[in-house]
């Protein structure tokens, strides 16, 4: 088979799977993140500060395990950018082989109106100032240059994987959409504070969500849906984390109205959306039951994927392989579970891991080699 055919076959394999069509084999999508570094001779800090080393690590990873596509090509945690501004909220610990990201607060509870009145002023003088208080014109330029270098590295890796390894990219970086509540939860108010705001400042919080959605997210969605994304696994990408703190009633009130509009537009334009669901989704299953098949992929983390499959036969599911097994099971156990996943989930299943694989004990090399050889040939 020619190189071009390998690439086109992979694209078709993913797209057919998303449309719940019968395929010759299941696509194998890597959800490995910093585990790749721990599987290499380099320390976390060495790799994350040196794009040449990171490139070698990611290429070695592919040459060893041969996935069809990758959620991460070494571009998560661009700490060089935030370090140029005096450091962010990541703590890279080579001794414990971990990266911690702290829940942090950059906005006070009584500042919603300021955010609504003039978002640029608020971001610059409050949010950015609190995160990077020692910014100077020189540091700003350095950080901008680092962000551009990061973008160039991202482009280089994407092109290399397409051209040399014939692996399609999962999504276009310009087609990443984020719910406004995610900004409040992940970045501005933090998990603990925004949980209180849900009860005490619901109206202000909703005002911010609705304004950001109308003025920023809808134009971004329209632009994303106009892109030619035929060479990607999916047309748009939507990461979800903040739903983890919501009840179904809160989800219906502050998250679903916007997400529904997005999904409706995706369906209307006959496009696809890859929803990466951290935490669990089962309690929100009712919201997804009427979505036409062929448009939505849910990548599940902590859910029972078999249960979700029963509840949502209209949705393509990704994930399944557990890090409990990859890290602690035998190759035989891992292969048996892989077979069960493929046999029971049938068409519309993208084989992947049930979390962003990050820690040494999440996986062993022996198990991953055994699983991927099985997937290629089953």
């Amino acid at each position, binding site marked *: 088979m020619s190189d071009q055919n390998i690439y086109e076959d992979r694209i078709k394999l993913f797209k057919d799977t998303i449309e719940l069509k019968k395929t010759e084999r299941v696509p194998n999508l890597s959800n490995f993140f910093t585990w790749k570094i721990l599987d290499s001779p380099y320390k976390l800090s060495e790799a994350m500060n040196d794009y040449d080393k990171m490139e070698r690590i990611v290429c070695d990873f592919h040459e060893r395990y041969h996935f069809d596509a990758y959620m991460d090509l070494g571009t998560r945690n661009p700490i060089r950018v*935030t370090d140029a501004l005096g450091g962010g909220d990541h703590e890279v610990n080579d001794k414990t082989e971990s990266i911690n990201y702290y829940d942090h607060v950059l906005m006070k509870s009584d500042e919603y109106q300021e955010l609504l009145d003039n978002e640029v002023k608020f971001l610059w003088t409050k949010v950015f100032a609190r995160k990077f208080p*020692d910014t100077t*014109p020189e540091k700003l330029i350095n*950080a901008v240059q680092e962000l551009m270098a990061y973008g160039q590295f991202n482009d280089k890796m994407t092109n290399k994987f397409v051209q040399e390894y014939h692996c399609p990219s999962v999504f276009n970086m310009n087609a990443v959409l984020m719910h406004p509540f995610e900004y409040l939860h992940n970045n501005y108010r933090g998990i603990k504070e925004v949980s209180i705001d849900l009860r005490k400042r619901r109206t202000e919080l909703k005002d911010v969500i609705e304004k950001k959605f109308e003025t920023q997210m809808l134009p971004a969605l329209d632009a994303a849906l106009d892109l030619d994304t035929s060479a990607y696994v999916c047309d748009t990408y939507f990461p979800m984390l903040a739903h983890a703190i919501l009840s179904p009633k809160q989800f219906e009130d502050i998250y679903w109205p916007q997400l529904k509009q997005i999904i409706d537009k995706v369906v209307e334009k006959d496009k696809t959306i890859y929803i990466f669901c951290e935490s669990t989704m089962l309690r929100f299953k009712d919201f997804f039951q009427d979505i036409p098949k062929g448009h939505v992929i849910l990548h599940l983390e902590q859910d029972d994927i078999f249960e979700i499959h029963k509840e949502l036969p209209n949705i393509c599911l990704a994930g399944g392989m557990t890090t409990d097994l990859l890290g602690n099971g035998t190759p035989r156990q891992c292969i048996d579970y892989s077979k069960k996943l493929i046999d029971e989930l049938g068409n519309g299943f993208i084989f992947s891991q049930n979390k962003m694989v990050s820690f040494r004990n999440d996986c062993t090399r022996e198990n991953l080699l055994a699983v991927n050889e099985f997937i290629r040939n089953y």
Partner: protein
Amino acid sequence: MMLEEKDSAIDNPFLTYPEGWNQAVESLVFLPEEMREGFLIQFITTVTSM
């Protein structure tokens, strides 16, 4: 550190609006003038999310 403490420690004329902001926009000389402010908005949104 509480936000009040953080705020009281910030004495940075560059992080003011509109003066410091305009200075930041103008410093992006490698970009066409009409693109600078949009780029800077995108930049601060991105890095405050990192």
